[in-house]
């Protein structure tokens, strides 16, 4: 199999969890894989040494111009340094979604998005596992990797490889990275607004999704939260509809919460939503669709319409 590379994302000099998950993904792709990590940025020496604990080789690409390297610049850099026909694993996060589809075109390689597993290779055909319709169904996808592949890996889908036994070497690839000019210039990152409650600090969350159907029905969830001593949070569609503030949104594009108990009410359970729930809480899923993906990750499930069930539960708790 071709050389396998992984793209390392990081924040404040610390590699993302995906850095170790991609080691596991590479080994599932090819049992004897020894992937090479690629780190692009500025002031990344310590970071590269950190990553080298888990990778036999780390390619460091560092210049001042890359201090705010967006996907546009990074795509050009990767096209320049990666050998033709390489396989590159990238976390399917907001950066990877920005980077990879275009990179696959520039490298004339195939692209597979949001991959959650591999089922082996046969010649130049690699079979990946993906999901569609927000996790409602899974698919096997065959791709022709003869010309290389850019494969985005779902964060959290692979266990991190914690062995840290590599003591790898850092190879400086900063010398010849091609053109780093860009038609998309980074200005600033605007922090999310802080709302009236901080759902990240709550032990019990009553979280609502599309199943609430109407803004007026949110009251039902608020009543339950009040009875339980909990706070109302939500999934993305509720914020898109402007029914609740962004600060109440649980998910990778919202808040990361660590409650003890999480009541998922009328939430289907997309991976972006589940990605915002950490700390292994006790998850109760209430949904009228028995096939909702949320039932696969919940501890307890109830097949019911939340509009009927939540008021019953609220009344019973209030009578305690």
């Amino acid at each position, binding site marked *: 199999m071709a050389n396998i590379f992984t793209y390392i994302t990081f924040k404040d000099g610390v590699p993302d969890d995906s850095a170790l998950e991609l080691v596991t993904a590479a080994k599932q792709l090819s049992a004897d894989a020894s992937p090479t990590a690629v780190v692009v940025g500025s002031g990344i020496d310590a970071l590269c040494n950190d990553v080298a604990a888990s990778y036999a080789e780390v390619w460091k690409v560092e210049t001042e111009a890359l201090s705010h390297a967006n*996907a*546009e610049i990074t795509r050009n850099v990767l096209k320049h340094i990666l050998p033709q026909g390489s396989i590159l694993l990238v976390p399917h996060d*907001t950066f990877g979604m*920005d980077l*990879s*589809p*275009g990179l696959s*075109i520039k490298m004339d390689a*195939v*692209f597979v*998005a949001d991959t959650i597993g591999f089922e082996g290779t046969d010649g130049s055909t690699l*079979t990946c596992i993906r999901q*569609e*319709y*927000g*996790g*409602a*169904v899974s698919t*096997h*996808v065959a*791709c*022709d990797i003869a010309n290389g592949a850019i494969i985005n890996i779902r964060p959290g889908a692979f266990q991190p490889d914690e062995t840290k036994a590599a003591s790898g070497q850092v190879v400086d690839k900063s010398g010849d990275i091609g053109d780093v000019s860009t*038609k*998309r*210039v980074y*200005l*600033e*990152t*605007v922090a*999310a*607004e802080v709302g009236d409650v901080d759902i990240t600090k709550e032990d*019990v969350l009553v979280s609502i999704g*599309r199943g609430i159907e109407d803004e007026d029905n949110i009251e039902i969830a608020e009543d339950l939260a009040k009875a*339980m001593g*909990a706070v109302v949070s939500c999934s*993305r569609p509720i*914020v*898109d509809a402007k029914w609740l503030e962004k600060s109440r949104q649980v998910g*990778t*594009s*919202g808040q*990361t919460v660590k409650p*003890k*108990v999480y009541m998922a009410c009328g939430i*289907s359970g997309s991976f972006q939503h589940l990605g915002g729930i950490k700390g292994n809480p*006790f998850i*109760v899923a209430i949904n009228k*669709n028995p*096939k909702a*993906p949320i*039932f*696969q*990750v919940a501890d*307890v*499930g109830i097949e019911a319409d939340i509009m*009927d*069930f939540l008021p*019953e539960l609220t009344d*019973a*708790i209030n009578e305690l």
Partner: protein
Amino acid sequence: MEILVCVKRVPDTAENEIEVNSDGTGIETDDLVYSVNEWDNYAVEEAIQIRDDVGGSVTVVSVGDEESEEVVRREMAMGADSGLLLSDDAFESSDGKGVATILKGAVDKGNYDLILTGAQADDGAAQVGGMLAAMLDLPYASLVNSIEVLDDKKLKIGREVEGGNQEMSEIELPCVLSIQTGINEPRYVGIRGIRKVAAIDIPEYGTGDLGLSAESVGESGAKVKRLDYFVPELGEGAEMLEGSTEEIVEKLIELLKAKGGIK
């Protein structure tokens, strides 16, 4: 500003339970309700608002069959100026690159300053916008949740990044942007609105019109192929509480008490 918005007809997941069909070759399509991909609807609304603000026109394009024409017409009823349908038997079973190739054919026939797509669609791949931009050699940004027109050469855009933060950038026109939901509040389209645009001709282009070789698209051009559909097994699954509502409520309260869920 001349704006092209790429839209897709998809099963409406808010209206349907998506299930794998009996032989695993696809999803169960009986009784499925279809609509425009939610992300694309936000993209069309954004395009219309930009045009109303700075002038120009909005064209809506879709790759698909006759049924996709309905979706194009629905988006025209929102206020888009014209529609295009890219339809050919040779387009069947295109992969992401194939769809981007077909769309590039349509882009090349026009003179667009701004090309919008939805950030993702039913297959969750979020790939066509980025591929199209790379093919056109245009700057690209994904997951865009704000657009401000600075002048006729530049936009100021926000991208949704992790944690609800927003990455602000300046991007040169022409460019391709993929639009995230929540960027605006798409207007409602009633039956009357659709009637108003019912008679407008929507031109249809195939491989020949778009200057494409049939081998570069569709099944023959696809290097990424879906083999089957199956029901995912992510974890052990929830313990389902059964019985009357009263019994379920009682069981749930005991569990919540034990787990610290009732204060």
